[in-house]
Structures are given as structure tokens and as C-alpha cells.
């Protein structure tokens, strides 16, 4: 049902020349996998899909149109719309050039969890309804399926859109499940945390899929690849990997929109979003600020106030 609304919307946008192109999701040959697609003709609109496997943050693709004149329609989930707002605030694109097709999002399904729960299942075995996922008519506990980054989501509805596909959701997954995969990490001792991350960092091959999937990592030249000066060695040693990820995390501070696209991109399954997510949690608590929730307020790390209590500096 959502898809037919989506397709009709897309067709109309192209027919009326409201936009020149639409960036959205399409299906692949493989079950439970989608891909980003771009279309510019009405008859291509039938390829558009919307389901809980649409994990890419398509705001990523806006950077390639920064210097073009195209009017672009973009499919945005809650988190994606926050990314667009950060890009607007950072002057990366003009609002008049965008048509946001909002998607009220039930949370993305994690493919590994799905395969673990239902090893042999095919897409036909599942039904997705307003209230959640059903396996042959039986409702599935969302905790068993959803991406960890989505279980902690506070903004399932797009915060900025021109048209919304589906009814706005009244509760966020976080309100419903009260689950944040960062919490158990907070309970670890510093040594345990260090061990945990050291282990994760030995896995990283420095493919930069995390960075390249992130809608807000748009630098022309990333510090990680600069040779003059060289900040981090190209060797994927644990310490250099740490350095890369910690510096990237700091570059994301107050900008990360908690979409989890970086984590889903990682080919070696490192829960890499946990680093920027932790920083966002701190910023939310310390500064009552959440990135991309509006288009005006300046990010805390880009502001200076004389009366700053500074009590986070110990």
C-alpha cells in the first residue's frame, strides 16, 4: 500500500517536473536486500520500493549534486531527514532544490538477526503491517529483528518533509522497548571497555565503508588520507584504526544523526556507530542538543559561551 502511494507520488513529481530526479530505494536479486537507485523518467518509478531493509541513508548522495542545478526528490526516514537538516544547516544544499518524500519508519530489520531467527525463510513468509512484522500471521517480537540502532531510535517520523508516506508513528521504538545497546557498555569497567574496543579495532581493515556511507562525512579530503601532514598511518594496525575512528567520531560530534548507516556498511560487522552514538548521547545530556532536529540552532561544539559551566572538563 505504501509502495503504491510512493510510486504514484514519484510519477507525479516527474510528470509535473516538480523534480528532475528521484533518489530512492530499489530491489535486488537477493532476498532482504535493497539498493539505492536514481530515476528521472516516469516509467522508472515502478522500481521504487519501501520496506524495512532500506538501510542506506540516501542523504549521502546529495553531495554529488552539490554543484549541479538538479531539483532532487529524496526518500527520507526519520534519521535521514535529520541528516538533510544538518546538511541544510551546513550549507551543503539548498532547501528549494529538495523535495523530501518522508517515510514514517517502523525500524529497520537486521539481516543477521533475521537469518538467525528464521534461517530458511524467504520474503514471502513475512508480512509487514502498521503494527509490526508477522511471520505466517504471527507477530514477531521487534527486539528479535530490529537493528540495534533502530531500537534506540527517538525520531521514527521525518522531521522535515514535503510529503509523508504512511501515518506518522505515535511512539518511537525507544519509547516502546526502552532499549539502547550502549547501556550495557556503560556498565563495563574502563579496562573491559578498552579490551572490547581493542578487539573490535583489530578487525577493522580500514576500507572506509563506514565513512563513505555516512551522509555527513562529506570532506573533499579526509584527514585519514592526507599525506601532508599525515595524521594516521595507512597501516590498519589497532592503534591507527583507533585513531581514525576516534578522530572521525570527534568530527561527527553534534552532527551525527544516529542513523546507523556506518555500522550497517561495515563489512566485518564492527558496531562502529557506537562511537558517534555515545558522543551524541553525551551531547544530548550535557547540552540538550540533538543534531538535525532543526535547521537553525548551532551545534554545541561550534559555539562558545562565556558562562559555559565547563563541568565536563575534569
Amino acid at each position: 500500500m505504501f509502495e503504491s502511494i510512493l510510486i504514484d507520488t514519484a510519477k507525479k513529481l516527474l510528470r509535473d517536473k516538480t523534480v528532475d530526479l528521484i533518489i530512492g530505494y530499489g530491489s535486488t536479486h537477493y532476498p532482504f536486500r535493497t539498493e539505492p537507485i536514481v530515476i528521472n523518467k516516469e516509467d522508472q518509478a515502478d522500481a521504487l520500493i519501501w520496506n524495512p531493509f532500506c538501510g542506506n541513508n540516501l542523504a549521502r548522495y546529495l553531495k554529488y549534486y552539490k554543484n549541479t542545478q538538479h531539483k532532487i526528490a529524496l526518500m527520507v526516514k526519520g534519521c535521514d531527514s535529520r541528516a538533510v537538516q544538518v546538511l541544510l544547516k551546513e550549507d551543503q544544499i539548498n532547501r528549494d532544490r529538495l523535495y523530501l518524500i518522508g517515510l514514517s519508519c517502523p525500524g529497520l530489520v537486521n539481516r543477521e538477526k533475521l537469518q538467525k531467527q528464521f534461517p530458511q525463510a524467504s520474503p514471502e513468509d513475512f508480512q509487514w503491517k502498521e503494527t509490526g512484522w508477522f511471520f505466517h500471521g504471527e507477530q514477531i517480537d521487534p527486539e528479535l529483528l530490529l537493528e540495534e540502532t533502530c531500537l534506540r531510535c527517538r525520531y521514527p517520523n521525518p522531521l522535515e518533509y514535503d510529503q509523508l508516506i504512511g501515518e506518522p508513528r505515535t511512539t518511537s521504538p525507544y519509547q516502546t522497548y526502552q532499549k539502547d545497546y550502549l547501556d550495557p557498555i556503560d556498565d563495563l569497567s574502563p579496562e573491559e571497555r578498552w579490551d572490547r574496543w581493542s578487539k573490535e579495532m583489530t578487525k577493522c581493515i580500514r576500507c572506509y565503508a563506514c565513512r563513505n556511507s555516512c551522509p555527513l562525512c562529506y570532506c573533499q579530503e579526509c584527514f585519514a588520507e592526507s599525506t601532508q601532514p599525515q595524521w594516521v598511518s595507512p597501516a590498519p594496525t589497532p592503534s591507527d584504526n583507533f585513531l581514525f575512528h576516534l578522530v572521525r567520531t570527534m568530527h561527527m560530534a553534534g552532527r551525527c544523526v544516529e542513523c546507523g548507516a556506518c555500522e550497517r556498511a561495515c563489512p566485518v560487522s564492527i558496531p562502529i556507530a557506537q562511537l558517534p552514538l555515545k558522543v551524541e548521547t553525551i551531547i544530548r545530556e550535557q547540552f540538550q542538543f540533538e543534531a538535525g532536529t532543526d535547521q537553525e540552532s548551532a551545534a554545541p561544539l561550534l559555539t562558545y559561551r562565556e558562562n559555559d559551566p565547563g563541568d565536563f572538563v575534569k
Partner: protein
Amino acid sequence: MKSGKVTKNDLVQWLKTHQNNFLVTEKVAHHQPELLCDQSKEIKNIKEALFLPWDKLFNYHWENQQWNVDNIQPSTSPRFLMALPCEARAIYEVLDRVFLQPSETESGYAARRQGLKMVIVGCINPEPTCFCHLVGGNPYWTHPDALFILPFHDEYYLETNQPEQFDIIEQGTTLNKSEKEEIEVLRKQMEEKTNQEKLPEDAPQGLYDLFEDQEWEDLSWKCLNCGACTFLCPTCQCFDMSAEGRLKGFQLKTWDSCMFPKFTLHASGHNPRPTFKERVRQRVLHKFSYFPLREEGRYGCVGCGKCIEICPVNWNIREAVERMVKKIGNRS
């Protein structure tokens, strides 16, 4: 060729006695977890065993008011490596051809390669993403120097040309006539599938002729130009070199990727492959055109499907190649 069969228990016992220097690829671990031992080391990608993610090429230091360089002697230590046929082909058919070129042999690779005893595990569970039969492989492909093992009626079929290297073969009982035939038939079926489905003979030249085709633009749009596909590809060979350490250090070799914009960037700022289109085209054509044109028709892709499995945007090399190969047909 010596062949035979052993019980699963005997095989696992043998693996256990060698487990301290046994590398197992993630694919094998995933397909046949019963072959894993506590101490065997799992590697993501077969090339990690030979072509390390990072490596020291030589040392240098400043002493007595001048620079000195010191060679590093690569060490050879015998190791077993258990891999699927596609992964093994990446070594025999691709990486060896790059790093063991006569007169330009890379000594580090050669030393590690010398010590390597390859155990090829017949593939009984092809995944939807893999396509070895398109590029000259098949699920029972093996190399005479390797030990080939295949689950066979609750036991394991073994085969090798190097019985001294793989003493387990001595424990094997010979196959009876009907068992032998069964193996033959299985093999035949697989080889026939390959012969029927493999890419057309003229694909490498045909794809090269399509260099200027508009389709590349379309094909490359969604690619993020990260290094995930090439770093986890068992055949991708590209590397970078840089100096690590100011007054004392080493020349560092690291994996590199044609998907990175900086890969070909000149110091002048000129870049022969400035956009996604050129970079994606390079990845496809290197594997399906340039490499076979240089290397007697062998593809630079073994069809393992890893790149498809892990790509964050589901970029699919097989689809891309098949789409372009169709164009060769349409033209002629």
C-alpha cells in the same frame, strides 16, 4: 593422483594435530564448522595468509650522519590453509601470477607461499551470491599440489598429488568402483555446468571494446567508492607503499584499492580516473578484461561473491558483467 576416504573422526583428529598452524578461511568456517579446531585461526580473506593487510618491506635508520637501509629476510614457516575452491583459485590463478612473476618475485609473498600447504574443501553449499562457474571454476575445483577434501557419505573423500605433504592420505581406504564412479559423475556434472555457463570466450576483448560505453555511468552511480569490496576480494592485488617512521622505520606496504579517488591522483592534481564511472569500470575491466588479456584468458575474479555479500549498497559485479557481456552479443 592419490585418493581415498577417511572417517570424519580421523580427519578431525588429523586437523587437531596440526591445529596450531592451521589457517581456516571464514567461508570454510561458515560452510563446514565441524572442521574447525579450538586453535585454528580464522581469516576473513584468503589473501591475508600471503598478501598481508600491511607488511614491512625493509628497514631504514639514520646513523653516523647518514641513512642506512637494511633488508628484511622473510621467514618461511610451514602452515596449512583450508579454503574453498574459489578462494584457492584466487591464489593459484591470480595472486601467484602477480607476485611470483619470474625475475620479479616478491620475496615476502614467495616465502609465505613456499610454506603453505593448501587444503581445498569441496563446496557443498554454494551461496546465492557466488558464481565460480562463470569464471572457469567449479565447486570441486582443486589443484594437484593441494589436498582436496569433500564430505562423502558421512565420510570424507581425499585426493592429492603430494602425499608427503599430507600424511592423512595414508590413513585413507581406497574407494570401491561405484564410489569412484560417483565422484567422477559429481565432478563431470560440475565441470559441465561450468562449460555451459561460463562467460563467452571473447568476453575479455568484447568488454575492452565497450570501454567507452555509456552504461558505465549508470552502473557506477550508487557505488560509494569505499574499499570494502576490493579489500575483501581474494584476488585484489593492489597495494600502496609509504615510509613509516622518521629517523628509524620501515617501508610499509598496505592494501590499496582502485575504488579510492586518490589511487591514481597525480601530484599535479590531474586524475586519469576522476569519477565513479572510471573507477568502477577499472574494477570490472581489470578483473574481466585486462587480467585475462594479459594472463592467457584467466579471469581476475574467481566468483566467490564476497564483494556482493558485503557491499553496503549491494553493488553487484556479476550483474554488471552480465549486463555488459550482453551488449557484446547485441553488437555483433
